[in-house]
Every structure is written in C-alpha cells, then in structure tokens.
C-alpha cells in the first residue's frame, strides 16, 4: 500500500475516498483546531498561495468557513459570487475557469447548483478543485466536519448508529455522509416522508424508516437535514405544519433517544420546521461545534493539498 498523499489532489466527493483516506483527513484536524483557539489565529504555512472561492449558490457558512480557513493559513482568498461575475455577461463556465487559471490561482473551491460541475472543472483545470457542494450530489467537507464532530463528542465512530432525518433525496449532505459513514463502519438509518426518500437506499447499506419516533430510539446521533424550499420544484409534503408534526425534532421526541444522544444539523436551520428551538440550543446539540470544526477541517485540507510541492 502506498502512503496517503493529498498534495495537488482534488476533493470532489466522499464516494471517491477510501476509509483509510478519510481516517487520514480526520486525524490531521486537531492541531488546526488549536490554531483557531490562539490569540493570533494565523500561521504562515500557505503564504503566497491564492485560493478562489467560486460560489454559484448562496452560502454564508461554507464560503466564510473556507475564507477564514485559507486566511488563517496565510493564503490569499478571493471570493467570486455569481451575481457579480462575468458569467452574468454570458461567459461560459469553461472560459471563466481558464481566465482564473491564467491568473495563477493555486486552488479552486466550487459550489454549483448542478451536480458534477466541480468534477468537470477538475478534469479541465490542472489546479486542485474542492467541491463545496454540487446540486444534490456531494458536499464532502461537510461530511468530514460532521464525522470529526461526532468523534470528538462520542469518542469513536465505529458501530455508532446515525439517524438522518428529512429530505434525503435532495440532500448532498446526506449523500456524502452516507458514503463516508458506511466506509467507516457506522450504522446509518434514514427517516423522512416517502416522497423524500430516494429509491435504492438499501443498496448503500442504509436502513430506511418513515416513523421518526421509532427510528430515534437507539440512535447515537440524530442529524437533521434542512428542508430546502428553494430546491423543491414540486410539493413534497402537504404543509409545513404537517411536516413539523411528524418530522420536527422536538424535546419530546429527543427524550425517546439515548440519554447521551448527539444532535447535528448542517445549517442553516429552520427553527420550528425541522428542529425545535429548545433542541437546537439544547445540551445535546453540537450545531455550533460543527461550525467551529468546519474551519479546522478546511484548514487541514488546504494544508494537505497545498502544503509541500
């Protein structure tokens, strides 16, 4: 077996990574978390490197997280948002990528509403590309920060049971997590209205349920997914009230779970729709810890991809 090396590589999805590679990435994170806890939250490691955040979808958390991660590593980070880019003047994606590469950019972080766009750019460009979310396909850095947070809180990943609740079919967070969690030997169960569960989940080694109260009982982790109203071309549930009635994580539902259960949410949260405010702000919630860890995970990733020659 050759040594794991991420230098110059793309990170497009968890589907492409081996269990050992995911383990390697997770193990690299803790020292970078420590950097963020210092008074001077900056190390000179990536001085002179240029990172472009290319976001074709609205994002606060992920874009800011990549920007902060890059800046804490002393890289120059440039944000290009689609509203102000030349794509709105009719330039093609490929021409735009060519122009960015011609400016000697060292790494591209891409989010796009269409699945596969980061992959297309990665094939086309010689610089590394990180997928920051493509359509309903993958969001690998979110899965990494989720796994890191679970391990930090529960001590280990193997044989833990994770329950993913909500719009599984439209969730890139769910897909990336399912791929990664299965590879690391975790039990994954999904729960949501039938209209939100894609066919073929069992082939991924996932248990499927539509009864939240039953599915939550022996879960170690409950990961709530955001109801993505902007992505729903069709109506997947009769009304928000009816969805909340059956699938909102309330304090009462949470009491059915293990005493030490961990609650995660990739954000942004719809309070009262998929998660009750008292749960989101409660002791079992690691939602803000996820955000903190997201910066450390991305710092580690940038170091492993851009550090070294």
């Amino acid at each position: 077996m050759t040594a794991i090396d991420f230098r110059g590589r793309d990170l497009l999805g968890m589907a492409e990574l081996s269990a050992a590679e995911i383990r390697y990435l997770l193990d690299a994170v803790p020292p970078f978390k420590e950097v963020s806890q210092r008074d001077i939250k900056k190390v000179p490691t990536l001085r002179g490197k240029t990172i472009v955040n290319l976001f074709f979808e609205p994002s606060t958390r992920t874009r800011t997280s990549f920007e902060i991660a890059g800046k804490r590593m002393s890289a120059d980070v440039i944000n290009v948002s689609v509203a102000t880019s030349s794509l709105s003047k009719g330039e093609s994606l490929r021409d735009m990528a060519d122009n960015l590469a011609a400016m000697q950019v060292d790494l591209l972080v891409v989010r796009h509403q269409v699945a596969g766009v980061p992959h297309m750019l990665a094939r086309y460009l010689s610089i590394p590309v990180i997928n920051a979310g493509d359509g309903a396909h993958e969001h690998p850095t979110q899965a990494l920060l989720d796994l890191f947070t679970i391990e930090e809180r529960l001590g280990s990943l193997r044989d833990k049971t994770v329950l993913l609740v909500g719009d599984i079919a439209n969730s890139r967070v769910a897909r990336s997590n399912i791929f990664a969690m299965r590879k690391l030997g975790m039990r994954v169960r999904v729960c949501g209205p039938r209209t939100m569960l894609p066919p073929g989940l069992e082939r991924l080694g996932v248990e499927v349920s539509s009864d939240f109260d039953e599915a939550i009982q022996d879960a170690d982790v409950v990961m709530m997914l955001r109801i993505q109203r902007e992505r729903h071309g069709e109506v997947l549930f009769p009304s928000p009230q009816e969805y909340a009635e059956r699938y909102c994580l309330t304090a009462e539902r949470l009491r059915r779970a293990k005493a030490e259960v961990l609650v995660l949410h990739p954000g942004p949260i719809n309070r009262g729709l998929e998660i009750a405010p008292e749960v989101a702000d409660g002791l079992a919630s690691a939602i803000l810890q996820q955000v903190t860890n997201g910066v450390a995970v991305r710092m580690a990733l940038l170091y492993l991809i851009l550090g070294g020659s």
Partner: protein
Amino acid sequence: MTSLRVQGGFFLARKGTKGCSRSKGRSWTPWPWSGPLRRIAHEIVERNRGTQQVVLVGIRTRGVPLAQRLHRHLQQIEPHPVPVGAIDITLYRDDLRLQKNRPVHATSLPCPLDGKHVVLVDDVLYTGRSIRAAMDALTDFGRPQTIQLAVLIDRGHRELPIRADYVGKNVPTARNEQVRVLLREVDGEDAVLLVAGEPVPRTQGDA
C-alpha cells in the same frame, strides 16, 4: 567499517557506509545523558537567577521528552515548579515546499509567555532553520522577555545567525553525516548515532 569514538565521557558510534559488513547490526552505544542535562539545568538557574520566570518549551518530536528530563533536573535544584510545553513547528517551516507533507502535531503551551524566560529545547542544532521556525511560532503566542536555546548536541553547519545558549555536547561533523539522537521515551533507548553518507529514513522528527 564501523568505529567507536569516545570523546570526553561521551560514547558516539560512527557507523560505516557502503560495503560495511556490519551495516545491519546496531552499532551505537548508550550515552550517559544525565551529566550534560544536569549541567544545563544549573546553567539555566544561574543565568535566570532562579526558575521563577522560566518556561521550558520542547520542539517536537525529541525536544519534548528532553524538556521533561531537564525539568526533573531543575526540580532538584529549585523546588519551584517550572512549566513545560511542547511546540510543533511544521506550519512554520521554510522547507514545506521542498518536501512531502509532514503530519502536524499539537502545540501546547502551559501558560502565557509574556514576560517569561522561554528556554527552547531540542535534540540537535544543525542549520538553525528549525529554531528560526520555533521562534516565529513562539512569538505568535506572546512576547517572552527572552528566548534561550538548549540543545543536547550542536553539530555545526549553521545557515542562519543562530547559536545555542546551553549545549550538552559539541560534535564536529561533516555535512554528509547524519546525527541521530534516540530517546527512551520515543525510540525505546538512549543513544547518539553518527551515520556517514546517505541520509537514513527516519519515522518522525528531524535534526
């Protein structure tokens, strides 16, 4: 050819290069550590007029157990407890571009460094580049009153204007030789290894 060098109470093994019939055998000798470390401890106490403001910071990997040993010697001279920390300099190195990724380890400093006399501890002083990186890292944690340097072995060949304040042993070397310090805590035994010729791969740390 393998020869054993004995210098003023220090036993150094000089391991032969190609064609050495015993190259597979381990040909070094345990080195009596406590002598030079005890002397360095006395020098630290003398120079800083006690240990009240002294903080020991070991450079990963082998500087950390050395700092802990130095701490035990300081305790025997002055009962005042001296804080001991560990610093990882990987993110501050100037040669990251030149080589493959090194794993980054934790930096943990026991207290604020403002106004303290920080003694950096490392096993081998060579080019001085590790020390440059360590000083950059330290200044990100505060403004020590002084930064001092204690090394077990100074092998020469500096590339930066850096010198050690406390030296266990000066060992003249050729550039193509490798100096390896093995420590019980990391390597299972205490030894100094002087290897001629090609660099020998090593699992962690560096000189």
